Structures are given as C-alpha cells and as structure tokens.
C-alpha cells in the first residue's frame, strides 16, 4: 500500500482522560481521525454521536447538517467525500435499512466512508433503547449485488474511540465503506476514555493521485494494487462518478467485460487482504478444549463466563473478533484442528455462528448461544454451554 501516514490534526483531538459514553467517544474518534463533515439523521441509540458532532464542529472547523431523512444523509456524505472531506454516516437499524442502496453506491464508486451502526433490537422499530447485535449479516449482504465491506466491533467506550480511528484509516486504505458495529450498551455505557495527544494518533491520508489531469484515470489499478488513486471535484480533473458499471475512466460501460473486470476487483481488494485485515484478541486458545468466539459487548460477558469456567478447571480459549468482516476463516480453520468445540454467543438468533460453521465444515462441534436482544447474555448461560461443549 502506498498511502501516506500522517499525524492527527490537533484541532480535532480532545486530548485527556474523560468519563464519557461510547457514542460521545465515537464522535471524538471521528474528529480525531479528521472527519470534518457529517450529514446526519437522528435515530436512537446513535443520536448522541451526531449531537456531539453538531456541538463540536464549529470550533474544530467543518460543518454538520441534519438532513431530511436517512436516504439523504447516507448519500450527502458521499458528495462530501468527492469534495475532499472525510465523513461518517451514523445510524441504527431502521435507518440502516433505508441506507442500504447507498451502501452499494459507496462500494461501487469506491467512496471511502465510515458507517456507524449502533445496533438495537429489531426487526422493524423493535427495541429502540435496548441492545442487539443483529445487523451483522445486513451490513455484509444488505445492499443488492456483490460487494465487500470491513466491519469492526468495539466493546467499550475506549474502543469506540480507538476503533473509529482505525475504521477511518481502513476506509482510506481500501476505499470502501467501513462499519463500526456498536450496540446500544456500548453506545450508552459511560467509562473512562483516554484520548492521546494528536502526535500519537496515526492517520491514513486519502490515496491522492500525483498524476495530472489528462494522465489520470479515475478507476485505473495495477495487478499489485487493486485500490485506485483518488482526486476530488474542483481540482480540474473533471471526474465522472457513477453507480453504473464503469470503465477505468469512470464512464458508464454496461457490458459483460467491464462487469467481469470491475466486480471481482471490488471484492478482491478486500478478500486478497483478509490476512492483513485479521484483528482478533486471543487468550488461552493454544491448549484449549473449547473456544468461545464473541465480539462487541458480548465479548465482555463471555470473558466473565470463561473466567468462571477456567476456575472450574476447564481449558477454555477466548477468541474475540475486533474485525468481524472480513471473517477470519483461515484462523477458525486452524483452531478447529485443535479444539473439541466452538461456542458462539451473540445478541442475535445466530448470525456469525454461520460463518464459524462454514469455516469448520463439520469437523468440530459449533454451539450457538442465540439471544433475541434487549439485554446481554447472563454469564451463567454461556458457562453452561462451555461445560456442555467441554464434555
């Protein structure tokens, strides 16, 4: 990768130790990452993020607008990207459903942007003020056609800050939508958040081209690097951006050869880098009989259950996904050679567990611990399944 690494702009970095909730921490993460334009639409439990952004941005230098609906918000931000800004899109379940077409637009046009989904119970209006992790498959598959995204899952306000910056950096590196998959608990829970000085925060710059107008082709790539270089409107390149299947110049080219060239590239720029995009926390997995795989808020409850199981003498590994998409298939396959079973608690009726089953191909037992949402698992529930799995 050739993108430049910079230090954060101190104007957006609220250095210090704070006692704030995940939504506020996420907003500070975005400001630290260089986000200076947000078009938002309020929805519980994500609203505090845009409220804070609206309050902070005049002093940082930038602009916030509350749009008329989620359709407008999720595409206005993409206009902002093509005018040169870093942007984020903030929502929760029902809003996310409305935004799905523009998820595809961002993927197709390779518009770097961060999407924050503070997950609540669904489907439909569901549980506006209570948690779930039930949008995991929607962000991966919800827009029509084939596309790839990256998704990160924080389990504390501190991580809402840290992973937000990582999400921005990845979106610039891969030029794709990157999701920060929060949930109502993480969004609304208040804890200590340490924001480092700006010069300790690394920022990935946009992959600006050095080519001149005339030489530059908006979607030209090489076999080594599947991510095209970028320009912005107003710089004389007269770019054309379209959601139609397009050629290297960005012009509509609706035919089989161009589709066959473009779509695999959009997927492979992520898929070929699954190893680089591996981000997990592993503890005690080497000699484990049972591995508990979890993410987000559930990983905290799972850790409590794992500690209790270890106290009973069981060999339990703790595998936590920081990056959920792309899913670490290879890692799961390697672990499946060694363990008896995987236990997968999640705040949905069984979504990421399907990926685990797909990876292990029936070699070992995979126990799902579903939950319809509204609260978190009881550690005892997970403990029971660990004991069951260890048998």
């Amino acid at each position, binding site marked *: 990768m050739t993108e430049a690494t910079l230090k954060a702009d101190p104007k957006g970095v609220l250095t210090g130790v704070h006692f704030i909730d995940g939504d506020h921490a996420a907003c500070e993460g975005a400001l630290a990452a260089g986000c200076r334009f947000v*078009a938002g639409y309020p929805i519980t439990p994500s609203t505090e993020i845009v409220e804070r952004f609206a309050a902070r941005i005049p002093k940082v*230098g930038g602009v916030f607008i509350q749009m008329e609906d989620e359709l407008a918000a999720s595409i*206005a931000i993409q206009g902002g990207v093509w005018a040169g800004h870093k942007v984020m899109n903030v929502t929760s379940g029902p809003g996310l459903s409305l935004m799905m077409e523009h998820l595809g637009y961002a993927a197709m046009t390779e518009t770097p942007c961060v999407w924050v989904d503070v997950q609540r119970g669904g489907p439909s209006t569901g549980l506006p003020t209570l948690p779930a992790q039930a949008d995991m498959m929607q962000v991966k598959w919800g827009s029509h056609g084939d596309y790839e995204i990256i998704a990160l899952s924080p389990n504390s306000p501190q991580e809402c800050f840290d992973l937000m910056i990582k999400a921005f950096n990845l979106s610039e590196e891969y030029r794709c939508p990157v999701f920060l998959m929060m949930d109502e608990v993480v969004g609304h829970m208040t804890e200590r958040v340490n924001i480092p000085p700006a010069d300790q925060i690394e920022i990935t710059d946009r992959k600006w081209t050095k080519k001149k107008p005339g030489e530059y082709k908006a979607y030209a790539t090489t076999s080594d690097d599947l991510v095209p270089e970028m320009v912005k409107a107003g710089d004389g390149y*007269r770019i054309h951006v379209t959601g139609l299947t397009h050629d290297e110049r960005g*012009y509509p080219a609706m035919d089989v050869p161009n589709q066959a060239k473009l779509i695999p590239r959009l997927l492979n720029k992520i898929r070929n880098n699954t190893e680089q995009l591996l981000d997990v926390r592993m503890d005690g997995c080497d000699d484990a009989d049972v591995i508990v795989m979890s993410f987000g808020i559930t990983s905290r409850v799972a850790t409590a259950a794992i500690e209790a199981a270890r106290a009973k003498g069981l060999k339990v590994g703790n595998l936590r996904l920081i990056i959920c998409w792309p899913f670490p298939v290879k890692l799961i396959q390697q672990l499946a050679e060694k363990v008896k079973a995987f236990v997968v608690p999640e705040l949905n009726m069984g979504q990421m567990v399907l990926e685990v089953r797909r990876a292990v191909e029936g070699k070992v037992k995979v126990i799902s611990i579903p939950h319809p949402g509204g609260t978190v698992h009881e550690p005892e529930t997970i403990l029971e399944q660990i004991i069951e799995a260890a048998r």
Partner: protein
Amino acid sequence: MSESLDLRLALAETELENPVLPYLRQDRIPHIWCPGCGIGSVVTSFAEAVRRSKLDRDKIAVVSGIGCTGRVAGYVDFDSMHTTHGRAIPVATGLHLANPDLKVVVFSGDGDLTGIGGNHFIHAARRNMNLTVICVNNFTYGMTGGQVTPTTPSGANASTTPYGNYEYPFSLPFLADAAGATYIARWTSLHSRNVTQSIEEALKHKGFSFVEVISPCTTLYLRRNRLGDGVDTLQYYQDNSILKHGADTRETAIDFQGKMLVGKFVERQKPTYLDAVNATCAKLIGDDYQLYGKTPPEKEAEKKAAAKGKKKAAK
C-alpha cells in the same frame, strides 16, 4: 501568403466548431436521447450559460440522479456525479457543504426530482441551499417506459395510468416557491435563449435557484397521448406559452395541452444555509469561530470591514 491561408483555415475551423462541444465529453457521444427529445437543447443552453457566465468551469460540479435527464452528468465535461434515483440534491448538498467554492448544478427529471426525490427538493429549497437545480419536465418517466409522474397533467395517458391520469399534478414553480426557493424560472425547450439566460442568472444567484424546462418526450408521452412529434410539440409550446415575468406561482399549474405561464417568476435575496450557519456560530462562539466556506476574498473583505468598524468605534 501561407500565413493568411493558415489564418483562413483556422477561422474555418473555428466556424465549424460547435460552441457546445468543448463542454461535452466527446468520447461519450453519441448520447442515448431520442430524436425530438428536449434534454439536448437544455444541455446546449447550459453549456452556453456556463460560457457566458465566465465562471471557472473546473469549479462547477454537475450532479444528476437516475433517468433520461440523469444521464446529463455523464455527457458534460465537468466534475460530475451520476447518483442514485432521486438523490441528486443530497449529493449536491454534500459537495457544496464540503467545498463551498464549488458551484453545484443538479440536472434532474420530473420523476427523479419531485417523485422519489421530492423530499430533498423541498428541503433544499427551504434551507436556501446554494445550489442550481435544472428540471427537465417531460411529464413522464422516460427511461423506464412512460409511467405517470407527479407532474403528469390530469387526464394524460401513461403506462401506469392507461385509462388517463386521475391524480392532481404538482406545479413545480409553486412548489419551489412555497418551499422557499429564491430564484424560480420556467420555460419550454423551445425557448432556448431564455433558458440560457435563466440558467446563467441561476448560476450567479446566491441561494436555491430553480429552472424548470418543459420538454417533449417524443417516444413515450407524445406517442401515448397522440400528440404528434417533437415539432408538433414545439408548435404547441409556441401557441400556448404565455410570458409573464413575476407571475404569482399559484397561477402556474399546467392542464393537459392547456396554456402555460413561462418567465422568471421569483428572484429574491435571503441568507443561504451557509450564511445562516456562519451568522449563528459567529454570534455564539465569537472570535474563535472560523467562518465556514467563505472564499478568501470574502474573508478578507469581512476582516477589513470589521477593522473599519473598530476604528470608527475607537474614534
């Protein structure tokens, strides 16, 4: 001798060149529009308006949604975005707010702009967002095969109202006016020079400017309603357009094959969205606030004015 020949050749070349060509992506021609369609003449007027306006064309961005008019963004040689159905205005809003130095122009059809995108249209007008919106109104969804739109006159036939349209249509100047647009004009595609002039004024207008151009859809709307060809429609426009600058927009409704008011209906000044953002934040935050989106000369002028004010106060 040879010099004068070169000159003559150069002159001949100049004369032959279509003045619109430099504003088109010539490698994208031929276009998809049908013979007799009015969109092309609006694009010609737009190109001519840009030329006359002397605006830096590299600071103009063109945004369109989906549909026949939605294809304009792909043919004009500017920074351009061809977006999703109905969402040209939000994208334009994003471009404009993220870089206020850009003059952002939306090209949209009646279905795209006021059907699926109607909410964005009224809200951008309400905010007096500094955008220029050009609507080619042909009373139908052309690209998808002639369905009814929010502007199809009552009684007209469309593929989804095969027994005649029983809905009441929008009058777009009235809608834009009620929502808060600060520049509103309507012409037909026959009125090329007027369209050019209005677009030029719209480009220079500060605030939400809206130019509606009534235009024939020969393949679908005309054929389905047995209204003849493009030339017949231009004749209809000539016979039935009534010029009335400053008309009350409540009188701008269009009946099926009835009379149409054309002209510049509204031109007024009020703070744009960004003006309002800056005024509010400057008042609240004071000297720490950095005006957002002011061009360097504007900022310079404001500084000077402020300094003068202070001096006066000191005296």
